[in-house]
């Protein structure tokens, strides 16, 4: 267990939040099947600092990005991401049991 600082509500127990997967890069406009499946299924799954999406499910409902060291679960920072120019990085479906991936 660890604390996560919601940019809106402040530090709360991780159980209040839903993990929504590592931050990924959108595929090109007209992706090949390979580019699309790379985006949908394949993950960096780093042992180290990871940028990831969280959703404050039982709190304010905010989607935000955290930087967390997956080796220690130390949260280095949390932020509301700037909308990127042209295209908004859409959150990824997490491969967790209560959200069937297929």
């Amino acid at each position, binding site marked *: 267990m660890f604390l996560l600082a919601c940019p809106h509500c402040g530090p709360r127990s991780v*159980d209040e939040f839903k*993990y929504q997967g590592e931050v990924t890069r959108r595929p090109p406009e007209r992706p090949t099947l390979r580019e699309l499946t790379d985006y949908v299924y394949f993950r960096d*799954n780093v042992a180290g600092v990871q940028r990831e999406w969280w959703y404050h499910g039982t709190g304010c409902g905010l989607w935000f990005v955290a930087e967390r060291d*997956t*080796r220690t679960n130390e949260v280095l920072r949390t932020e509301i991401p700037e909308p990127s120019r042209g295209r908004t990085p859409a959150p990824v479906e997490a491969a967790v049991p209560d959200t069937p*991936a*297929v």
Partner: protein
Amino acid sequence: MKDIFRVSRMWRPRGELKKRYDVVVIGGGSHGLATAYYLAKNHGVKDVAVLEKSYIGSGASGRNTTIIRSNYRTPEGAAFYSRSVKLYEQLSADLDFNLMFSQHGHLTLAHSERAMVTMQERAEVNQLLGIDSRVVYPEEIARLCPQINLGPRQTWPIQGALYHAPGGIIRHDAVVWGLARGADRAGVEIHPYTEVTGIERTSGRATAVETNRGRVEADVVVSAVAGWSTLVCGLAGVRLPITTHILQAFVTEPVKPFLDVIIVSAQMHVYVSQTDRGEFLIGAEIEPYTTYKSIGTFPFLEYSARHTLELFPQLERLRVLRTWTGLCDLSPDYSPILGRTEVENFHVSAGWGTYGFKAAPIVGTTLAKLVATGETPDLIAPFALERFHTDELVSELAAAAVSH
């Protein structure tokens, strides 16, 4: 007679690493050791080294909840695990080592009409493949497991269950030790505390591994490292569709034999069995976030104890003896990733999530065949890594999402 009390080494102490092996297996757990064992036994490939970064069986093989079953949802999965159960049934005799496999039956409870439909589907898939598996209703559950609380005051009333008579529990450490001894006797070298730090490739082909004890050349490299798969396969330049999560379990203090069947509830995210030592062994669900930090959480203990008491209120005075966690490599479709990768002669056993232990002998036989003959056995063809590139998934969510 006095020999039965004599302590003897089960396998040779590690020697010097050779400069070259026919096959290098990364990971000294049940999958890696089974692959090495069957390579030597079935194919006569004996120039094999098993490299393990810690002690033998220190990862998921020593941390699982020891359940063996084959009542899966997809025909591919059910056929595969069914062969594994059959191999497990003979493994004690094969290894000349008592693995204490007891097939006392396995009940997956259904608490809703939708769950009953899923159980019916699973029963039908299983029966078509000749697997002993059927839907039972509360009267029969009461006969199979009189200890369970069937009401009237339940949070989630039990409507029925999938009953799988060949399901059972096994002594998990014994599986690892038996396979290690069998492999060692056949000539395989076992190298604990040998961490792989790099994998060399020459023109798209794995040729050598770099370890903390020096460089080793190999014709074939096999990765069987569960939670660390992304990292080890990354060394070979193979990207995986895997996320690493922790799974937790705990045991209570030992009591007299009380429960023989295994009880699983997907609704309550809990599975309960009593070990041969008398401890109640209770496991739950993975933590939803990815992490490599193997440390337990208090909410896990709280909710799994609460849910266990819903099923077995008699256990209310039992104390928790110990808890532990292990790393799980979750794949997007809850099926394993097994066999070839895009790097030639670099094979993988990964994506086992929370259900890898029950597959050890079948992974060993099929991977050994792949390594020895270069042909992918039909049984594991549906589980190739390639399926994620071509989007042909084998969804086992219905039968594997509860981690046992």
